[in-house]
């Protein structure tokens, strides 16, 4: 599994191209404003990479990853903001945030080891809702929906970073996480995760301890999500309101992973670019291009008859909603997702071997039944199927 030099060259070229965007923007006054949304892309890439470890590598579907980002943002906010007594610096707060994220991951992972497949998905979803509600309701600590501000911007060696600085710092963060995820994937731990995804019982037979591996996956995922949350909070100088970390964000993270190519680190990076880019670059530009439109006075529908009525009806309808491009955003987004899945269900850049994996489609609920039960148990094929919920 040696990495070819050509591959390294291409990777470096890509990194250089991405890194040069702020410089190009500065010197070529095209009015592109893509470095800012790109910074969001990096944050979402970190979130996606974290989720990929849990869902992509280990095969545990998580629909509540935004909760970890919320925990990250709020831990970061409380440990740095001037209205609390801690007032840590950017980097120490980031460290604390990741540790807190990992703890939260353990806290969710440990009791739910027995819960599998889609049941696990709903537990994580519930966890996400609970975290959001608790953050809103404990307003004496979290300021409820007010959000906590101001927060320190990212720093490097004591210097506050501006737009471009943040861009590069976040890019480095995303890169480090990506390389880390890549190395993890190839390490003993990572192979353990993948074997659990493929077949928990068999991997247990091979000496892997699924409970430990799953807990570790949960903690890593949560810790990275918390990092993403903290970085966003620092960039916005506000923790945002708890509602900002709702189910939709978890769904967006999941879409990033799956659209990019589940289990594939490069895929997730590209997925973040496509999904977040679609939202903050393409749709925004599309809106600008089409421009807003003034609604004309509603036609007098009551007086019209027959064909004229039908024409007026459609025309008024169009004036009411159809001509405004913002009203098409959900549709474009949803259509893109469906078409993407139909024509490239394995993602843009599938993980190696994903095509072979695809048909069984069973990552979520591995064949093993009941962790506490006797492994194997001489289950005949049919009996196994029936044991599943």
């Amino acid at each position, binding site marked *: 599994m040696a990495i070819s030099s050509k591959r390294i060259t291409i990777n470096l070229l890509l990194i250089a191209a991405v890194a040069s965007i702020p410089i190009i923007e500065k010197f070529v006054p095209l009015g592109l404003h893509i470095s800012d949304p790109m910074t969001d892309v990096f944050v979402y890439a970190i979130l996606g990479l974290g989720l990929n470890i849990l869902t992509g590598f280990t095969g545990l579907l998580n629909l509540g990853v935004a909760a970890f980002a919320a925990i990250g943002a709020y831990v970061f906010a409380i440990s740095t903001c001037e209205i609390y007594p801690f007032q840590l610096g950017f980097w120490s707060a980031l460290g604390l945030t990741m540790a807190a994220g990992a703890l939260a991951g353990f806290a969710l992972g440990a009791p739910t080891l027995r819960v599998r497949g889609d049941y696990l998905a709903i537990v994580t979803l519930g966890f996400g809702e609970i975290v959001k509600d608790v953050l809103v309701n404990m307003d004496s600590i979290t300021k409820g929906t007010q959000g906590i501000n101001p927060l320190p911007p990212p720093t490097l060696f004591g210097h506050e970073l501006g737009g471009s600085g943040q861009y590069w710092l976040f890019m480095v963060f995303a890169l480090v996480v990506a390389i880390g995820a890549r190395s993890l994937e190839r390490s003993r731990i990572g192979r353990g995760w993948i074997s659990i995804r493929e077949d928990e019982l068999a991997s247990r037979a091979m000496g892997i301890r699924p409970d430990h591996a799953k807990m570790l996956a949960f903690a890593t995922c949560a810790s990275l999500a918390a990092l993403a949350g903290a970085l966003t909070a620092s960039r*916005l100088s506000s923790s945002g309101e708890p509602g900002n970390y709702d189910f939709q964000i978890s769904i967006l993270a999941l879409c990033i992973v799956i659209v990019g190519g589940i289990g594939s680190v490069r895929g997730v990076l590209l997925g973040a670019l496509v999904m977040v880019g679609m939202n903050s670059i*393409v749709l925004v530009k599309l809106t600008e291009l089409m421009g807003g439109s003034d609604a004309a006075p509603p036609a007098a529908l009551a007086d019209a008859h027959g064909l004229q009525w039908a024409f007026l009806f459609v025309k008024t309808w169009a004036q009411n909603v159809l001509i405004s491009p913002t009203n098409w955003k959900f549709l474009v987004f949803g259509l893109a997702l469906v078409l993407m899945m139909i024509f490239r269900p394995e993602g843009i850049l599938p993980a190696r071997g994903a095509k072979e994996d695809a*048909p069984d489609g069973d990552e979520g609920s591995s064949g093993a039944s009941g962790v506490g039960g006797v492994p194997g148990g001489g289950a005949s094929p049919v009996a196994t199927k029936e044991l599943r919920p």
Partner: protein
Amino acid sequence: MDELLGQTKDTDFVVTGLDGSRTRAGRFVSLSFRVMIRRTASIVAALTGAAFLLAAAPVHAVQDAPNKKLKIVSSLPQTGSANAQTTSIVNGIKMAIDERGAMVDGFKIEFEAMDDASPQKGNWDGQIESANAKRAIADPAVVGYIGTYNSGAAKISMPLLNKAGLVMVSPGNTAAGLTKPGLGEPNEPAVYRPSGKVSYFRVVPADDIQGAVACEFCRNDLKAKKVFILHDRELYGKGIADVFKKTAEATGVEVVGFEGIDAKASNYRSLVTKIRAAAPDVVFFGGTTQTNGAQVLKDLRAGGAKIPFVSPDGTFEKAFIEAAGKDSVTKEQGGVYITFGGVPSEMLTGIGAKFVKSYQAKYGEIPEAYAVYGYEAGCVLLDAIDRAETKDRAAIIAAVAATKDFNGALGTWSFDENGDTSVRTMSINTIEDGAFKFVRTAGGAAKAK
């Protein structure tokens, strides 16, 4: 047959599981990566190219005449249920610009309405609001930022715009802490002013006045002895509900319940049972149409609690009446009273009345309550640009701050040293025959503190 079995691998799961993973491992090694690399590179290249093209397209317009062109932007949530209200604000701003023929001091005025909501959220989104602010800052032609609608969003863009020295005029933020020291967090409003100067102004009166006025109305006009307070747990709704509660307690009205609702719930019947058991004289709801105010009202009526329902200006829009339906808003059912920071469109006089008339002529409907604030924000900004006679952002901030005895649609008013409007007139409105009806004005004399 093989294909069929391939679909359901669990039919023989132990052996193939082990076997299968070994096979796959073998393929890992033997796979050629070149294809993969080429594919990555081409996809990335194509995507980047597409993004650049898209991004570059609308730029030409800006570059035509770089010196004689100024730009005003607005940032309001236009995706989602606040859409009607924000669209009419945007219309109001456009009318302010059109009235001056889109020219001030020989500068051509351009306007762009930015959306700070995302389809995923259907509501304002902090990241998009931040991106909008940064985009406005980065564009040298932009001299004014009209927004935001939600106070939470303002908290994100205010420090950014303040640091960059770009003036911000809000047509909709009512959270008191944004401008007034001592009413929000201890560090407010200083946190929003990293440069130390005031660059944020609002043409709407803040919540501290409105909550108190609503409570006074319940006590004096509705003769309420016991109130049940509901709020939507959001910055705006809870803020007003808190002020209402404080005023009630200070003036001897008993608060028999104070509850945060779940704005996404399908109905509130259980809560209504709780309210019936507490037997209040009035229910106050701190919230908006978007946070389900109409449903709360409907369930009150369906659950048999036929007492007055009082709510703030977040429900002062046609959408509220439409959502609540004809039957639950009538006086026989207890009545609905809505406070508003200003007087309703129909009751405006002078310039305000003229605005409503021309709005109606142009858009075919009576404007939503906030449209006039959009118009006023636009007018104030253009007036300041006119007086500043320059495109220098700092000079324009100074000119907006110096606005004094401005004769606008909301009457004659000035900005105070915090950036708040001197307008303190509130109105109480009710609903009759499916339309808002003005009841009386209420001065902003009572202040909750």
